[in-house]
């Protein structure tokens, strides 16, 4: 009987410990989400509508070192910052916020000839910026954020572009 009691105590304390651990992890995760949501300091790309001559700002303040990629309206998936491939946004990992002219934002990818780079903004349309802990898995398997930016060429809202990017 005393043995049973000891086992019961042991079991109870182990289950209490486990429960506490789960509670601690859940609280930490909830805290992290609360921080990101409540402080409205999730990763961001602004402005939401951008002209060729304007500056784009990329902010990743979470401290989670999220990688970044973009899907262009003409079907390219370009890597902007990923430790496992390449980082082509200057200072992305060392600064919480990076601003650069839209025309200078470069993306990286591979094709049959090897790696290549190209300007991100080449055609008008919606660009989806995807921040994630892991770019190579489904969004539901990783912490991820999507931000949409509309790039406008030849819009009356934009200054004329002297570089003559083709109007598409």
């Amino acid at each position, binding site marked *: 009987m005393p043995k049973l009691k000891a086992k019961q105590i042991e079991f109870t304390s182990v289950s209490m410990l486990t429960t506490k651990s789960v509670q601690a992890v859940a609280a930490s995760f909830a805290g992290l989400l609360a921080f990101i949501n409540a402080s409205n300091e999730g990763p961001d790309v602004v402005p939401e509508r951008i002209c060729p001559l304007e500056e784009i700002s990329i902010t990743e303040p979470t401290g989670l070192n999220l990688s970044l990629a973009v899907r262009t309206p003409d079907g390219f998936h370009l890597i902007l910052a990923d*430790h*496992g*491939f*390449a*980082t*082509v946004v*200057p*200072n992305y*990992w*060392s600064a919480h916020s990076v601003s650069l002219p839209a025309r200078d934002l*470069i993306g*990286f990818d591979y094709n049959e000839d*090897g*790696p*290549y*780079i190209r300007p991100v903004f080449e055609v008008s349309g919606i660009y989806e910026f995807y921040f994630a802990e892991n770019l190579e898995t489904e969004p539901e398997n990783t912490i991820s954020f999507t931000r949409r930016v509309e790039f406008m060429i030849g819009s009356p809202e934009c200054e004329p572009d002297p570089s003559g990017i083709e109007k598409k």
Partner: protein
Amino acid sequence: MYLAIIGVMLYFAGPTSMTEGLQSPSIGPEKVCADTLLVITPGLVITPGSDISLSLAARTFGGRFVYLADQLTATVIPYYWTHSQTEIRAGDLFGWFYADDGKPALLPVFTEGGGYEFYFSDNLHTEPENSIFITRRITYFTDDDSFCQS
């Protein structure tokens, strides 16, 4: 006497107050073919505040200075900043540079057979004498060279 002791103490204390040590970088082997796996150890400047990883650049056969891993421009070597050692096939090594029109471009590092220099530095954007600058040399052999066929 006391001044001499203080002088000696300052002499030894001076350099270590800024940089406590250097974890030497490396890239190798010294002789490679396109299919050789290059092993890169980025190296580290150990300071009292925080450690600084060394950036890496190379000079191509045509003499162009290309960035391989640099926070201020681009990093095109996988896991360079996150792993103490990273590997890449020599034939897959590309460098980042700015063309004459100011636009960035990629260039394969190894093209012709011969010697190539690689530069590890805490600041690739200043003169070598103003920064930590460590040079390593690698000899590249093309696939038709007997070295690569053996």
